[in-house]
């Protein structure tokens, strides 16, 4: 878009320049033409006058040859009389007017000289070199000499004085350059007008060029991040309307643990790392790719899809490799950096640019969650996570008390009784529909709203079960567990009610990011000390640290639904589940199989000595706790 503007401007200025050159030449040609026309006109008039003079001299005096002419003008009085009359023709442009005679030795001599200045004597020799004097005698016709190196003279007009068809003398007139000045004066206003116009327009063009220059300089300043020399978010807003998103993949880059660099080495080092990293990014990408500094250490990269070149994913992997292999050296510190990247290879599928960026950002979040220094590409499986309800939705639901808990029974098939219930969060939408946690939980992780939601669930569940004899299981993740507010809520509620505490289990996600094992164990011990139980949720889905699970002395292992749902047909899943149950038995933990959705699955599980069963085949989650008689009603 910018290039088109520049080219258009250049062509415009070029056309204007050519137009002005044409106008200038046209004026010059017109001037020459005017000169020529005025000259011709003036000389024509002179010719008429000279014809009269010729008649007067030759016919009135019956002159038949040059000798008679010399004889006539030898008379001082006659000569003076003629010179007097001829001098009447002198004007500012007619400087000299004289009659020449060619003697026997072919030398020209003055017979008459009507000039007011530089007057020649009678019969004085006049040295002429131009061939036109001779030519006049040969052709008997008027000759015009354009003077070049003669002071003040512009043109000499030679008129033949003839008698009986023979040239007997030359009537010569020297025109001064004043004629040009007169012509110039005549056309001067027009010329001045054009010159002023041209000057004005050229000044305007110069002004325009300066303005354009400053415009592009300002544009550059507005659209460039001074630290990294990359485009900034202003540029993103500028290109959004014209960007052909179908030609690009969209990647969100974030330098890992950049905050630590600033905290440890200072902001100068941080700035250095940012500038250096930007250079590495630029070297790693193609010419058609667009790199934007999106935030502090966040960068947005539009990777142009060129089928002949490497893929977008390869570009991202190259960036990761180049950053991780580079040693950043600043103030005698050697620093290693890593970068995480989330990429959406088909951002055009999203509603708009903001949605596409949001997807790439969530992929980046996943890349961070999965251990950093990696690229995560968006696929349809992740769409549910990406398109979950946002924080404001949950915030509003909390404010309007539309957060509720559903309860799904965990069945003890050996006693045929409900062993306990799992509390499952739901939001009642403004239209009354029930919204599943899959639609709003992914967007809340690590946010304050997530903690508030957890507190609300704890409050709802503990309140409901405090005066009951039934047991309940509540889901927590590691970040909930280490949150002081949540811990206080749990401790306050359970410390005073040991009966309730003994009926409460906390399901901790096995796949959750447990970064501090020591702290994790400490929190688990706190729950144990209150008399509550611990269940490891979704066991088998993540990277289980068996030692940790043994150390924390969990009471239950809930086998991940992905291993259960096809257990009736998938022999491998069956074997894994059997192994988990054996491990749990050895570790003195009870096992719970979730996702029991059919009779076949249910029956298969009865063969593997699992302790408890949970799933839609037994009962779906309900807003109220169900009793045994309402089970198996699908």
């Amino acid at each position, binding site marked *: 878009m910018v290039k088109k503007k520049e080219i258009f401007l250049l062509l415009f200025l070029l056309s204007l320049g050519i137009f002005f050159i044409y106008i200038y030449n046209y004026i010059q040609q017109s001037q020459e033409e005017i000169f020529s026309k005025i000259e011709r006109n003036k000389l024509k008039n002179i010719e008429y006058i000279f014809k009269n003079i010729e008649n007067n001299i030759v016919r009135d005096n019956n002159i038949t040859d040059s000798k008679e002419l010399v004889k006539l003008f030898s008379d001082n009085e006659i000569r003076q009389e003629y010179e007097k009359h001829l001098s009447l023709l002198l004007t500012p442009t007619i400087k000299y007017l*004289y009659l020449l005679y060619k003697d026997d030795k072919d030398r020209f*001599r003055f017979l008459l000289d009507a000039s007011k200045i530089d007057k020649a*004597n009678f019969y004085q*020799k006049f040295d002429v070199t131009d061939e036109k004097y001779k030519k006049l005698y040969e052709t008997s016709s008027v000759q015009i000499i354009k*003077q070049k*190196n*003669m002071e003040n*003279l512009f043109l000499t007009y030679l008129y033949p004085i003839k008698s009986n068809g023979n040239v007997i003398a030359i009537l010569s007139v020297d025109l001064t350059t004043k004629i040009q000045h007169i012509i110039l004066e005549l056309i001067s206003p027009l010329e001045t007008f054009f010159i002023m116009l041209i000057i004005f327009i050229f000044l305007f063009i110069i002004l325009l060029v300066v303005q354009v220059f400053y415009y592009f300089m300002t544009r550059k300043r507005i659209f460039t991040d001074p630290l990294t020399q990359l485009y900034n978010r202003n540029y993103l807003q500028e290109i959004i309307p014209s960007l052909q998103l179908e030609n690009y993949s969209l990647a969100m880059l974030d330098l890992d643990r950049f905050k630590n660099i600033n905290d440890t080495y200072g902001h100068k080092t941080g700035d250095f790392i940012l500038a250096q990293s930007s250079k590495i990014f630029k070297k790693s990408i193609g010419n058609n790719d667009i790199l934007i500094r999106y935030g502090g250490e966040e960068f947005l990269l539009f990777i142009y899809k060129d089928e002949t070149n490497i893929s977008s994913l390869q570009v991202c992997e190259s960036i990761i490799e180049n950053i991780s292999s580079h040693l950043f050296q600043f103030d005698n510190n050697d620093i290693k950096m890593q970068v995480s990247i989330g990429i959406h290879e088909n951002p055009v599928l999203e509603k708009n640019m903001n949605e596409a960026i949001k997807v790439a950002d969530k992929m980046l979040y996943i890349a961070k969650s999965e251990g950093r220094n990696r690229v995560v590409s968006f696929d349809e499986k992740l769409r549910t996570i990406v398109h979950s309800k946002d924080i404001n939705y949950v915030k509003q639901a909390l404010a309007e008390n539309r957060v509720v808990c559903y309860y799904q029974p965990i069945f003890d098939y050996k006693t045929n009784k409900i062993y306990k219930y799992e509390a499952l969060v739901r939001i009642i939408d403004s239209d009354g529909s029930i919204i599943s946690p899959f639609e709003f939980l992914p967007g809340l992780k690590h946010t304050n709203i997530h903690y508030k939601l957890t507190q609300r669930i704890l409050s709802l569940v503990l309140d409901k079960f405090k005066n009951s004899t039934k047991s309940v299981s509540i889901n927590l993740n590691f970040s909930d567990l280490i949150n002081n507010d949540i811990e206080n809520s749990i401790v306050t509620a359970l410390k005073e009610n040991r009966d309730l505490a003994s009926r409460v289990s906390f399901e901790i996600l096995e796949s959750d990011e447990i970064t501090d094992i020591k702290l994790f164990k400490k929190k688990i011990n706190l729950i144990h000390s209150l008399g509550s139980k611990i269940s490891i949720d979704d066991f088998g889905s993540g990277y289980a640290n068996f030692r940790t699970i043994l150390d924390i002395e969990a009471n239950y292992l809930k086998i991940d639904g992905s291993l259960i749902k096809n257990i009736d047909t998938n022999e491998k899943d069956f074997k894994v589940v059997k192994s988990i149950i054996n491990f749990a038995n050895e570790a003195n933990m009870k096992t719970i199989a979730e996702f029991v959705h059919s009779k076949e699955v249910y029956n298969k599980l009865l063969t593997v000595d699992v302790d408890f069963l949970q799933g839609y085949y037994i009962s779906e989650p309900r807003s109220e706790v169900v009793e045994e008689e309402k089970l198996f009603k699908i």
Partner: protein
Amino acid sequence: MKTLLILIMAIQLLLASNNSVNTHKVRILETIVKGITLQEKIVVWSDNNSLLSVLKKQNNIETSYKCINSTLIILEKNKNLKEECLSKKIFVLNYNLLSTIKKSFGALFWKKGRPNIVFIEPRLKSQSISISKDLESYLEDRVW
């Protein structure tokens, strides 16, 4: 601004024009001096100092800053002719001086913007001055 530019150009043209006339004059004078033969060695003096300076730079022309030491005077103004130099050969730069200074044998002058040369034949003979063949076309019997 435009007037100033035109004025500057006019002055430049005028200077160029004067230079052109002077150069032309010197070149013609050089030819004339070389074309003249006196009975003694030609040593030129002129009342036109700038002309004398230029002539001095010519290889084949000997000049003098004193009239008395010269053999050929190139005279621009009659008043500059000192009495002690009246015996020298005199070439004038004004046609009318040919009439005023009866002894002057020739002239170089500008008439109607064109250079003109005249040698008065009787005066050449009376002073035993000879001229080259090339200059013979400028010979005149008398001053008109």
